Every structure is written in C-alpha cells, then in structure tokens.
C-alpha cells in the first residue's frame, strides 16, 4: 500500500538550531495517524513542511505522491496548522467564501462544511466575535472545504470545551471511517489513544517511536488481589505467567478469561478482593519515551 505521506531523513535547521532532526514518517491511506510530542518537539515544523509552508533543509518529503506545496498536492490536502487564522473583519461565511474562490470549490460545499462543524447559525457573524472554540471549528471547516483525501490537523481540540472536544473527536473518527486519511497532531494523549490507528512520537526533533496504538501499549494483564496470595499464585500459573507487583498478582492472560479466573479462584476457597484488566496507557509510554530521550540526549543546539 503506497503511503500518502512519506517522509525520510527530514531535517529543518533554523540558524544554529535543529528543529527537526532526521525524521522518518509514513501515513498510510485511510488511517488516522496521531503525531505526538511535547511543545517544541518539532510537530508543527514538520506539518508546515508537509503543507509547503516551509522548505526542509534536507530529506525527502512526498505528499499524495507529489511535492508539498504543488497545486495538485494542495488540491487533495486540507489543513489547519497551529491556530486557525482568518480575516477578523469578515464573517465566517465570507472567510470560507474567499477560500472557496482560491480553491475553486462550490458554494454548496461551504454550507456542507458549516453544517458539519455546527457553525451554520453563526456563519454570518464576524470572525473577530467568535469564541476560541468556534474559531477552531471554522479552521476545521476550512480544512474540509476541498473535500480532501488527506486532512492535516494541528491540535484541533485546542480551546474547545469538553462537549466541543467530544464532537471534534467524533468528527475526526467519522473522517477516518469515510476513508479519508487524517494526520492529527496533539498533545492530548487520551484523545489520540481514542481515535488514532497509529502514532508517531517526536521529541526534540527526533522520531522516537512509530507504531500501531495497540502494539505500542503492549499486552494486557489481569490484576488480581487475593488471599492467600501464594495459593492464588500457584493456581493462576495455569492461565499464564504470573508476577507480583506491590500487593497484587499480574497474570498475562486474555482479559476475556477474567470470569473464568475468578470462578477457579473462588472454587479453590480463595478470597478475591480485586480483579480487573490493566493496560499501559499511551500517556505512560509517551512519558517513558520522551523523558528517556530528554534526560539522555538534549535537543541538538549547535548555536
């Protein structure tokens, strides 16, 4: 399957500062790809390169099979980079109208995207009167205006209230199920975990991991708190490898077997006070990877 975004050895240097350092990245058709990293990690710089706003210092970048910034590539790409930027004296509708003129998009599509982001009622109000959340939604509407194959969203839930965040997550999931490819940059790890198929984690300009979300989180375990513990451990070894962690026993077993494990333990006269599945949250992995690198190798700064 040909990648829609293929980045290899991407480097961007500003004077003596290396903002992006040899990044490799691949976004496959139809997936929702989460691009994670702490502030200043190089996420936005990378996305700006993908949209042709800035030129890389070195490395190769292919987007939709072409060079970033080419008319054919821009036609198939919708993006919102950093904060949404529009003309403050124009209404939301007029802002979209002029973007539609640039992009050669029909008036009907403007109504569709306004409906999609739930801004139809306020479309005729000036952009300067919009709340942060409404500005963000207009930015997403603008990104979808061209009905693009690839959607690049940089922190799309910034400034949204919980209901707005939920709606935005739903919208992004819908984009994915419609068959669009979404490249989503975020520092909200729970959000990425919920909606992304694969994630890339960048830190100090370097890509530190790129995996399927489930692969990255590793295998699930069953946490059991039971008395007597030794007897319980002996029984649990029938289901899988067991290790102790604090006062609990951790069993590597399919979570679907939790009820069966409970039944066997109770029938053996063991008092089970706690039994649940656990998995490593993306947040744990993110902090492991980013902290490891930050403490080991600081961002290259040759200035």
């Amino acid at each position: 399957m040909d990648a829609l975004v293929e980045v290899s050895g991407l480097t961007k240097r500003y004077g003596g500062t290396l903002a992006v350092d040899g990044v490799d990245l691949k976004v496959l058709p139809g997936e929702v790809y989460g691009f994670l990293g702490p502030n200043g990690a190089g996420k936005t710089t990378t996305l700006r390169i993908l949209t042709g706003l800035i030129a890389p210092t070195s490395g190769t970048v292919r987007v939709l099979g072409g060079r970033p910034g080419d008319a054919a590539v821009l036609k198939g790409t919708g993006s919102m980079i950093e904060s949404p930027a529009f003309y403050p004296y124009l209404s939301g509708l007029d802002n979209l109208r002029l973007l539609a003129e640039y992009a050669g998009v029909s008036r009907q599509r403007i109504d569709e995207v306004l409906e999609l982001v739930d801004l139809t009622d306020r479309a005729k109000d000036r952009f300067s009167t919009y709340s942060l959340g409404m500005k963000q939604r207009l930015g997403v509407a603008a990104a979808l205006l061209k009905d693009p194959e690839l959607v690049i969203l940089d922190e799309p839930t910034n400034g949204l209230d919980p209901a707005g965040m939920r709606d935005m997550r739903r919208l992004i999931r819908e984009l994915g199920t419609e068959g669009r490819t979404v490249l989503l940059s975020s520092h909200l790890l729970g959000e990425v975990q919920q909606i992304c198929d694969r994630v890339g984690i960048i830190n100090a300009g370097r890509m530190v991991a790129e995996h399927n979300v489930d692969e990255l989180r590793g295998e699930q375990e069953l946490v059991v708190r039971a008395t007597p513990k030794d007897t319980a451990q002996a029984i649990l070894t029938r289901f899988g490898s067991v290790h102790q962690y604090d006062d609990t026993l951790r069993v590597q077993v399919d979570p679907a077997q939790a009820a069966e494990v409970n039944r066997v333990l109770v029938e053996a006269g063991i008092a089970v006070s706690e039994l649940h599945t656990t998995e490593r949250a993306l947040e744990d992995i993110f902090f492991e990877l980013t902290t490891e690198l930050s403490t080991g190798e600081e961002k290259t700064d040759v200035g």
Partner: protein
Amino acid sequence: MLGSYRAELLKLRKRSAVWVLFGAGLVLSLIFGYLLPYLGYATGDENPQTDGVPRAEILRGMLPERIMDNTIGGYPIFAGALALVLGAIVIGGEYTWGTLKTVLTQRPRRLTILGAQFLALGTMIALWVLGIFAACVLCSVGIAAAEDGSMSWPGVGDLLQGLAGGWLVLMMWCLAGAVLAVAFRNVALPIGLGVVWILGIETLLAGVVSSLLPGLKWLANILPGTNAGSLVFSVTGMAAADAPPGVRDAVSGDRALLTLLAYCAIFAVLAAWTTRRRDVT
C-alpha cells in the same frame, strides 16, 4: 488566477480601512482643490491666501478646464501616502493575522496569489482615481454653474492621459507599501517608514540638493517622489506657479513615466522573489 483575483477583491471590498483611506483621499482632494480656493475666491482680495492673485484666476483653477489639476495634483504626496498605506495594510495584514498560511495552503501557487493581490490593488486604485475624478467633476460643474464660468473641458485624450498618469503614481506608491510589508512581515513599520519617506525625506533631499549640493541633482531626479511629481506636472500641463507641493518639472514626462514603470517592476519583482523563497512560519 480568476478565483484568486475574486477572493482578493472580496477582501478589499469588505475591509473598512480601504474605504476610510479612499474617503480621506477624496476629502483632502476636495478641500485643497475646491473648498479652500473657493473660500479664497469668495472672500475676495482681503484674503491673505489670495494676496496678489486675481479672483478670476482663482475661479479658473476650479472650472472644468482644470479638472485634472484638481483630480491628480495631490497624488505625488498626500494621496501617494494613502496609497502606500493601502499596499502596506493589505499585504502586511496577511502576516500580522497569520492568514498567509491559510491562503497558501489552498490551491494556487504563491506567485499566483501575490499576482492576484497586486491586480486587486490595481483595481482598487483605479476605483479611487475614478471616484476622486467623479467628485471633482461634480464640484467643477457646480462652481462653473454657480459662478457662470466656462464649461469647456480638456480633450478626452488629455483626460485619459491624466487619469492613467494618476493611477500609475498611486500604484507605484501602493507597490512600495506592499514590498515594505513583505520585507518586514508587518503593517506598522512599513507605514511609518514609507510615510516618513514620502512626506519628509524626499522633500528634504530635494531642498538640500537644489540649495547646497547641485552636483547631486541626478540623485534627486531618480527618486520616486520626484518622478511622480514630474509625471503629474507633465500630464496636467499646469503652470509651475499653480503647482501644488511635490508637483514640478524636475524631469521630462517621458522619463518620469519610464522611471515610475521601472519602480513598479522593481517593487513587484522584489515582493515576488521574497514571497516565493521565504518560509512561512
């Protein structure tokens, strides 16, 4: 290109600052072209402003035959400054609002968008020129009717030449504002520098060169303001004694025309080169 041009026109049409600048140019043209001279004419020989100038001569300056003097006489300096502000706010606004990234991630290439912006600015400048001309026509006709003055008009060719010359002068200053905005990625600094240049430095340089350093006359004669004033002087055919500030026969009309065209080309190419190469951060 047509879509980008329509988008740029929409932005200009809906921006109140564009119309405020036009209104300022219009009001200033009417005040200096008609209101003050008419007050001088009406108050007669007692008015120190018209001391020594026959009333008939003051009236003649407001009649239709001198329409181009009043329409474009103020373009080299004050209307030029307003045109520079127009170029700076339109192009610089894209940087201060961050809208350049929004526009550049649509379909057209960078130079197509810049070209559409220049084309839209040229259209707006043409509207300014025609608007001021129409207002001057109304004033001239009104004064001629009220004072029983002559209703003779300049030839169509002279009118077209005057309007085209005025448009070129304003366009040159507008592009100067645009290129400064591209260079500084800002609105305030280009306006400050540009207006100080038009209203102060060029006049000062011309004065110093003519009185103290005549050997540097060639330098003064290649400056944009000098050539703008010379073109207006040439296309209106006004007398040196009647010429408003900044309008004089420093160089010939043909040379002024070529120099202004060269400035327009240089400003446009510099803006295009910078826009095409620079990262949008």
